[in-house]
């Protein structure tokens, strides 16, 4: 029995007792069941298993703490109106906001934060991490940490632009189609069908081979590929709303299409759209990664996470974590964005429970 194991159980039991004493029932249950589970784990997995639990719990506690502090921080600096909203945000949402904030900072100030240039070769291939290179070097001897930071700027910037463009085009067309109906609806619907019925990778392959692979073309092609999905969803949701009585009423009042969209339909169809936004955003990452599979992605040596995963993907078969780092960066951002989206979804649904 090492000092660590004794300390581990002592800390858990002490915390459980404290929770019980101060009558925090849920906390007590959680802590004490963890203590019981730890007995089993300790017997089966030994000290390493307990260490993993500690690290995991520590990371979770850190995340919770950060989220809480970040929320308080936002509440302090925001205007009263916004602060009131923010106060209702669950911890997951503030965690999401914190991650997005961090990524934004990393992206905007990439050249200042990154210790090395994104293309700068400073070490031998796959050099292990050291004080100079936090995450080691990639196959060319470039600093992985710096490339992740630059990747935030390139990948997120590109994906965000493309997603927003796709949403602008898709949602607008969808709302108009739902309101106007008739031939406009038909034409847009058919156009969307045509684009969607060609698989996205093939569509991108054809378009990028024809028009070249500059950034502008990539953004437009990706937006064109994804806008029909947004269109269809908007059209379906708005279609359900358009047949509602209050729309009838507004129409009889003589309101114009634009008013209907802005004041009646959009607010009522927001939540599925927001949910979709969070998902489409990460699909765009993946499409760009898939494009680089066909040699059509972002030009080298620009760092982007999708390509970084792809370049070293085969190493995973040997348990090497190099490709996991950019993959984790994508996953973390996706989870964060969707946490925030969930919160907004919850708010806009008007549910007042809890």
């Amino acid at each position, binding site marked *: 029995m090492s000092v660590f194991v004794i300390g581990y159980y002592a800390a858990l039991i002490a915390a459980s007792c404290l929770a019980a004493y101060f009558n925090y029932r849920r906390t007590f249950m959680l802590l004490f069941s963890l203590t019981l589970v730890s007995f089993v784990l300790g017997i089966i997995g030994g000290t390493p298993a307990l260490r993993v639990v500690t690290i995991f719990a520590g990371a979770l506690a850190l995340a919770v703490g950060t989220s809480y502090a970040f929320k308080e921080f936002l509440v302090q600096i925001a205007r009263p109106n916004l602060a009131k909203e923010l106060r209702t945000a669950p911890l997951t949402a503030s965690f999401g906001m914190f991650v997005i904030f961090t990524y934004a900072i990393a992206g905007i100030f990439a050249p200042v934060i990154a210790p090395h240039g994104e293309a700068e070769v400073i070490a031998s291939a796959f050099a292990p991490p050291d004080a100079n290179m936090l995450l080691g070097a990639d*196959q060319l001897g470039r600093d992985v940490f710096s490339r992740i930071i630059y990747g935030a700027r390139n990948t997120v910037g590109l994906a965000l632009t493309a997603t927003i463009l796709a949403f602008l085009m898709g949602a607008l067309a969808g709302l108009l189609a739902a309101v106007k109906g008739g031939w406009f609806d038909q034409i847009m619907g058919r156009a969307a069908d045509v684009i969607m019925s060609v698989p996205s990778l093939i569509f991108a392959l054809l378009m990028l081979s024809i028009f070249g692979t500059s950034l502008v073309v990539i953004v437009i092609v990706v937006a064109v590929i994804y806008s029909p999905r947004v269109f269809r969803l908007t059209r379906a949701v708005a279609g359900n709303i358009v047949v509602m009585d209050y729309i009838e009423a507004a129409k009889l009042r003589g309101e114009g299409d634009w008013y209907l969209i802005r004041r009646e339909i959009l607010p009522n169809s927001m939540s599925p759209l927001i949910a979709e936004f969070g998902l489409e955003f990460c699909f765009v990452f993946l499409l760009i990664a898939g494009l680089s599979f066909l*040699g059509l992605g972002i030009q*080298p040596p620009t760092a982007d996470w999708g390509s970084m995963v792809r370049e070293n993907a085969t190493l995973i078969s040997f348990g090497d974590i190099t490709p996991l780092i950019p993959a984790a960066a994508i996953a973390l951002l996706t989870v964060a964005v969707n946490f925030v989206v969930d919160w907004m979804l919850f708010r806009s649904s008007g549910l007042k429970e809890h």
Partner: protein
Amino acid sequence: MTKKDQELIDRIAEGARKGRISRRDFMYYSTAAGLTATTATGLWTKSAAAAPQRGGTFRWGLHDGNTGDTHDPGTYVTRTMIFLAHTHRSYLTMINGDGSLGPDLADSWEASADASEWTFNLNQNASFHSGRKVTADDVIASLNHHRGDETTSAAKALLTDVVEITKDGDHTVKVKLTGGNADLPWLMTDYHFAICPANDDGTIDWKSGDGSGPYKIDSGEFGVQFSLSRHDGWHGEGAWFDKVDIITLNDPNARQTALVTGDVDSVSLIELKTMALLQRDPNINIFNIPSAGAITLPMLCDTPPFDNVDVRNALKLSMNRDEIIEKIAFGAATKANDFHHSPAQPYWPDDIPQREYDPDQAKSLLKKAGAEGLSVSISTADSVYAGAVDMAVLYAEQAKASGINIDVVREPNDGYYSDVWLKKPWCLVSWGARPTPDVMYTLAYKSDAAWNESRWQNERFNELLLQAKAELDDTLRAEMYREMAMLARDDGGTVIPFFNNFVYAARANVGTPDQLAASWESDGARAASRWWFTS
């Protein structure tokens, strides 16, 4: 014998079994470890030279296949088809494991004094899978498939100096050339020149997939899988496996895992990035064979700024080949010297000084050319060579030391050879192994060659090329190739970083000959007929 000695001997024996050490080293080390010469010889035989045995199904994962492949030898382009061709069809000649030229369908061959007329005598036992004997008519039809106005063969350029092909009896073929070509028998190993059964009208029947090779096709789907079984009447030696399954595995990870899990017995290419990791697996043997395949960076010599020889040489000097070999090829390459003649080819001149990374000299050359602060673009694509884009990026970093700015442009994989190669002023190209320097130079460096990829014009070089081609005296020929190499190195428009090794792998229970051919991956594409199962 101490325990330590025993361990050493075990290690050496293990090395011998995996083909990592030669017989000579083996004898040296084992006698040093205290064995007598006789015991050592016995151990060698047991460890390495275990006699091949028949049997088993060889599952062979190949790295490049396409749904649109066909059996037409004129349009062979993917590795799967080339390797399949070496398994189910025959050629006139073949490259042996030791790099020499050996017989396949042709038993023997001889040239006229000026090397302008060649006679090939066919093996009388050779037969197609359908049972019919291979005759001179089949050979003539198969070669004519690549000649004439009607042909769509990619190998047409190789046979342009053939005047006519005639037969002399059923088993003798005569090839008449416009000029001397001492390398014609070598040329006949080109993968396009597979011998197919002739139709009555002088065309060939390639559609049926019939051939005279060691295995016959039982069933297959292009780009997916082929099942073959032994052709009992095969004229050659070997074909130890009862059956061969050729499986197209385009994805590097799929190949690797299939090999590790034992879903295939051998793969034709492994990713260099994971080579060192794969080596740790005791069930897998990795073969790392220097080849004549090369990566070239041709600059169009008639397009500024590459029309200035000083600029060209400055760019050659700005490349740190050692770092590129270490980081891109992971050591699995032979350093090149800006002339396209590899140590794996005959007549290689070994006394030419290696060009090293020298940014200072590059700078002074640029100054001389008045091109300081040079900025150029290089086009590349991932499909050219695993790591091609990375290599260009790394080169661009290295060239910064000479004050040169290289923009790396990644082009689409798709259509690279039709839209980029020979069109963009500077690009990155991968060349397969060609058997002799003559074939290589004639294809891509001769002034009027269709694929003169650098549009380099050098009178002396072209003169020497023609002379060397017809020269039957090896010493004189070697001297000519040396001079040509110097010209290409110091005046030519192609930066050649390295000759890539073939790196492939097999499960430990696959036996291989001591020497593996360097003409293609997997023992010159002939693993199916040359390898065997040891257990």
